[in-house]
């Protein structure tokens, strides 16, 4: 932290992007900055709100050479950016040297990584001498898709603001927060992921080893910073080590736990009609090598071998999955059963018998 431990005295902080670098598309700059803020909001009670006019707490700008703060930039390389500790006026502001080549990948300087660092200063963190920390002063490229704060960064920021409020993610705790045992808890999406089952809810996911009592919770952004929160459907093709994640009309691919480039893609590329705006649940059946997609009271079947939607769909869930629906929240496949989630209820559905064989609580996997 800085000398005197300056902090913001409030938890809702505004930011404004004053201008843009010509090196990147505006929407990529917006996204990099928003994700950089999210890295910090995931581990603190802080909330960041973007404003488009007037003075914000944190003003973000790109500038060349002398830019009015007595700390001129030095041209390409050397100093990449700087930011000021929390306070009025210039306090909290973050400046990026326009002489650098900014990018959303490993070319030049990755804006997301530098922004996470600078915003750390804007929130009151000084430099760390821990090489693993994002607050280490020297630049080093890290994959933004697998980026996460170091324990030093988290300890630092939480010493200033405390941990996140409930339902917010905690970094690598040993067991799930009690919230998972809330009798009214529903999940957004559930899938297997290797030897674990992953339960998505808002910005976090719980993980569970099905055969043991070992569980945990992580924030989505701590593992995949560029993935949005609120994943609505997910399924795994275990043989390919692929997991598909859906939100609204977009989907992402995780392969060997890494987010793949060229995503998100549009769900319409899978063959959905335009009136489908989001997927409620998705499940891959390894016996058929087909994926079922559930949308309101209807479902589609996608042939993973031919990469196209089977003809004759959509069909009504209640007609072909007796005891299920009309609408589901999430579904996953495990040991020849589908597990459908409807609010706080979970239905075990035998794939071979084609019927519901057990009625459980949604949180049943956590021994609640």
């Amino acid at each position, binding site marked *: 932290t800085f000398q005197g431990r300056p902090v913001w005295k409030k938890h809702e902080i505004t930011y404004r992007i004053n201008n843009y670098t010509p090196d990147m598309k505006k929407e990529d700059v917006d996204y990099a900055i928003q994700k950089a803020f999210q890295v910090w909001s995931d581990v603190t009670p802080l909330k960041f709100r973007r404003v488009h006019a007037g003075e914000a707490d944190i003003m973000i700008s790109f500038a060349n050479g002398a830019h009015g703060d007595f700390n001129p930039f030095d041209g390409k390389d*050397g100093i990449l950016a*700087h*930011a000021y500790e929390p306070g009025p006026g210039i306090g909290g502001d973050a400046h990026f040297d326009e002489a650098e080549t900014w990018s959303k990948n490993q070319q030049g300087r990755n804006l997301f990584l530098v922004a996470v660092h600078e915003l750390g*200063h804007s929130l009151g963190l*000084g*430099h760390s001498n821990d090489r693993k920390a994002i607050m280490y*002063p020297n*630049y080093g490229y890290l994959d933004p898709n697998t980026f996460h704060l170091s324990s030093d960064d988290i300890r630092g920021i939480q010493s200033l603001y405390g941990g996140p409020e409930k339902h917010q993610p905690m970094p690598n705790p040993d067991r799930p927060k009690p919230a998972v045992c809330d009798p009214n808890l529903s999940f957004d999406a559930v899938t297997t992921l290797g030897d674990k089952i992953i339960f998505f809810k808002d910005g976090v996911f719980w993980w569970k080893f099905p055969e043991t009592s070992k569980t945990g919770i992580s924030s989505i952004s701590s593992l995949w910073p560029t993935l949005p929160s609120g994943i609505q459907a997910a399924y795994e093709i275990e043989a390919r080590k692929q997991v598909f994640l859906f939100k609204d009309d977009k989907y992402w691919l995780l392969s060997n736990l890494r987010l793949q480039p060229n995503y998100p893609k549009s769900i319409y590329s899978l063959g959905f009609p335009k009136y489908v705006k989001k997927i409620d649940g998705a499940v891959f059946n390894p016996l058929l090598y087909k994926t079922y997609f559930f949308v309101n009271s209807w479902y589609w079947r996608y042939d993973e071998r031919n990469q196209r939607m089977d003809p004759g769909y959509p069909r009504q869930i209640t007609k072909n999955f007796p005891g299920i629906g009309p609408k589901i929240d999430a579904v996953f496949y495990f040991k020849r059963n589908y597990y459908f989630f409807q609010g706080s209820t979970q239905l075990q559905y035998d794939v071979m018998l084609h019927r519901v064989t057990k009625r459980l609580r949604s949180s049943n996997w956590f021994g609640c």
Partner: protein
Amino acid sequence: ASQAKVISPTEMDEEFAEMYLNHFYGLTETIPMTKMKISRDSLKEKIQEMQKFFGLNVTGQLDTSTLEVMHKPRCGVPDVHHYS
């Protein structure tokens, strides 16, 4: 830290190091305004401070690994003192 190779820094290296240490470690802040010249001792002290911060061999000399770290792209916020 890798073994620091002992070299004779060039005048350019020394000038660059002075600027680096002044910006990031407040080199001139510790020198009275009346004394215009940076003493060898205060320079050595600040090099040591910087080497300690970066986990380098603490020699107080401008060795290759120290200069290498100084030349890396970085954030402009000072490591141990405030912007003035």
